[in-house]
């Protein structure tokens, strides 16, 4: 019986079930970018086949693009070649929805999907990027895939997936001062560990999520993958519908009414049973920060780094991790000197994140010895930053804005944190070398990033908020 939100959407897309195998799942919308698609297109070429539904694929260049001087030719020949290959492939295979560097619609794939109404409730959405889970914020089933699967979707609009188990994470109550959606996500991951939801698809429920903006919901769903989940989703409600309505690819007129009638059915029934249920209280959550080399190694910012015995997993792995970070068991995070701040990525590169950052730095000044990269997720976000006067606040406080792209989230372009330096980042991964070889990453919210940017040390943002 389809009685969870997930089941309803999944079951509506099963083309066939293979005995003892995966389901053949129809994919409504496929997002592609320059890094994980070229070999998939090469596969099509080698097989001599085309793209089955080119209008269902949307292409942007984001992972490997510079965030300054985007009007100039890309310097790195390998990056330039990848960008050119994407352009050529979309042309060859009739994919008209291609937004390359310099196009107003260009931006991080998981930021532009929702912005242009490509992301809709009840849809199945995949992309060769693990944070595709972002789109689950709309009540879509969205998850990251590998390049072989990109080739499957291009050639057949389907992938093979065993149906995941179901988990519901309910958080009721309200969030304290200075606690934002990123903290909620890092809190959940710290409770579940980085593998605690592997094999599951998560539904987030409860007052905390109901009261969240779409941007906040996207941040939470985005990070689902960091606890191993295939994806996360939130039932669509009026907040969702208001966001989707009127965007370029959103249904219009009679189609909108038909869509609304269907979307309103997309919720978990009261009698639904999940394979796993977890319940937390919003008041438990404080501003979070990570201290290790995976997103599960996070804690409330006022806490001290736990001893190896207190955490799950092997001592050797834990010590390797702290060794990489240059931290010791028992250290306080507050007061630790930092070198870089990165605000951006598909996790926290949306307008709400820049609003939050600006609200804290307003009237203060950037700390002298800190390098700060503020990278909007898209041109739309960049425009909003200008139009809302946020840029003025930032400029006055000594900050500059870069151009949209993934940037230091994965440091494929020149935005690399140097070896040994500590960066407070609003992105999603603190793995060894993720932000550049030898770089040390502290994951946190835009508010914690702002507090670090103006003080030069890890600082509890609650002490700076009026």
């Amino acid at each position: 019986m389809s009685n969870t939100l997930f089941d309803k959407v999944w079951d509506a897309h099963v083309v066939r079930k293979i005995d003892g195998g995966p389901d053949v799942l129809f994919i409504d919308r496929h997002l592609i970018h320059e890094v994980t698609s070229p070999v998939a297109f090469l596969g099509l070429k080698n097989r001599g086949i085309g793209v089955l539904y080119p209008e269902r694929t949307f292409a942007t260049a984001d992972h490997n693009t510079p965030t300054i001087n985007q009007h100039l030719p890309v310097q790195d020949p390998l990056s330039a070649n990848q960008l050119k290959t994407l352009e050529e492939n979309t042309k060859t295979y009739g994919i008209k929805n291609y937004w390359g560097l310099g196009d107003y619609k260009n931006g991080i794939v998981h930021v532009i999907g929702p912005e242009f109404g490509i992301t809709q409730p009840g849809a199945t959405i995949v992309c060769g990027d693990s944070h595709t889970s972002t789109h689950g914020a709309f009540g879509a089933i969205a998850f990251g895939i590998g390049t072989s699967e990109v080739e499957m979707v291009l050639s057949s609009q389907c992938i093979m997936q065993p149906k995941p188990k179901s988990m519901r994470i309910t958080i009721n109550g309200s969030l304290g001062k200075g606690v934002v959606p990123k903290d909620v996500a890092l809190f959940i991951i710290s409770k579940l560990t980085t593998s605690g939801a592997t094999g599951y698809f998560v539904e987030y429920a409860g007052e905390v999520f109901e009261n969240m903006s779409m941007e906040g919901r996207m941040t939470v769903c985005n990070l689902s993958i960091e606890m191993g989940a295939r994806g996360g989703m939130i039932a669509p409600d009026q907040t969702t519908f208001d966001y989707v309505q009127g965007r370029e690819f959103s249904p219009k007129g009679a189609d909108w009414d038909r869509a609304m009638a269907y979307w309103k059915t997309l919720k978990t029934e009261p009698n639904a049973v999940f394979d796993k249920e977890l319940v937390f209280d919003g008041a438990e959550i404080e501003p979070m920060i990570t201290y290790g080399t995976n997103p599960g190694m996070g804690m409330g910012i006022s806490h001290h780094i736990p001893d190896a015995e207190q955490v799950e997993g092997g001592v050797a792995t834990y010590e390797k991790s702290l060794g990489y970070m240059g931290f010791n068991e028992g250290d306080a995070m507050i007061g630790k000197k930092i070198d870089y701040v990165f605000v951006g990525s598909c996790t926290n590169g949306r307008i709400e994140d820049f609003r939050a950052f600006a609200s804290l730095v307003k009237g203060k000044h950037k700390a002298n010895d800190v390098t700060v990269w503020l990278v909007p997720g898209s041109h739309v976000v960049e425009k909003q930053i200008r139009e809302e006067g946020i840029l003025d606040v930032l400029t006055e406080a000594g900050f500059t804005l870069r151009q949209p792209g993934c940037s230091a989230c994965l440091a494929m372009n020149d935005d690399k944190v140097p070896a040994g330096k500590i960066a407070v980042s609003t992105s999603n991964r603190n793995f060894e070398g993720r932000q550049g070889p030898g770089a040390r990453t502290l994951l946190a919210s835009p508010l914690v990033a702002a507090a670090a940017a103006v003080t030069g040390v890890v600082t509890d943002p609650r002490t700076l908020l009026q």
Partner: protein
Amino acid sequence: MAYDSFNKLTSRAVPLPIENVDTDQIIPARFLKATERVGFGDNLFRDWRYHPDNTPKADFVLNDPTYSGSILVGGKNFGSGSSREHAAWAIYDYGFRCVVSSFFADIFRGNCLNIGVLPVQVSAGFLEKIFAAIFADPHTELEINLPAQTITLLATGEQESFDINSYKKENMLNGFDDIDYLINIKSNIQEFAKTLPL
């Protein structure tokens, strides 16, 4: 891209007893700029394997001639993080055909199965035994038997069975991939597309 079929594999194994090995470690992002699937094995575990000046780090297991083989044995939660299939390609291209761990991240596991690397999940206890056996004798061999779905420590005969769904197993045994299957049911897919709710 079809791959070599997989049936039985008897080999020494390379031990990597670290947990949560993420795909950024397996292949760092800066090596993802290729537009073809070639040469990824050279950069497998790049930053664990080489110093910034590209000289090998002597203490990393892939640089230690004591250990070799086409089976990689990793700690719990192997392959977490980024969906990059390049991680599986790098493992395959380096010469591994099988990864053994007590737990795999989802996307990585799927990527491996799609390109012909067999992920073998064993119990935490058996994983410990495997590590101990390799460290005691680096020449110790493992046997992976896909038809029987077993993994055996040949020295002691200790064995565990592992899970794989029958469809994927059939694919691995024959070197088929999902795209062959999907292309064959194209007309069903097109019919189905007409019945979507929106």
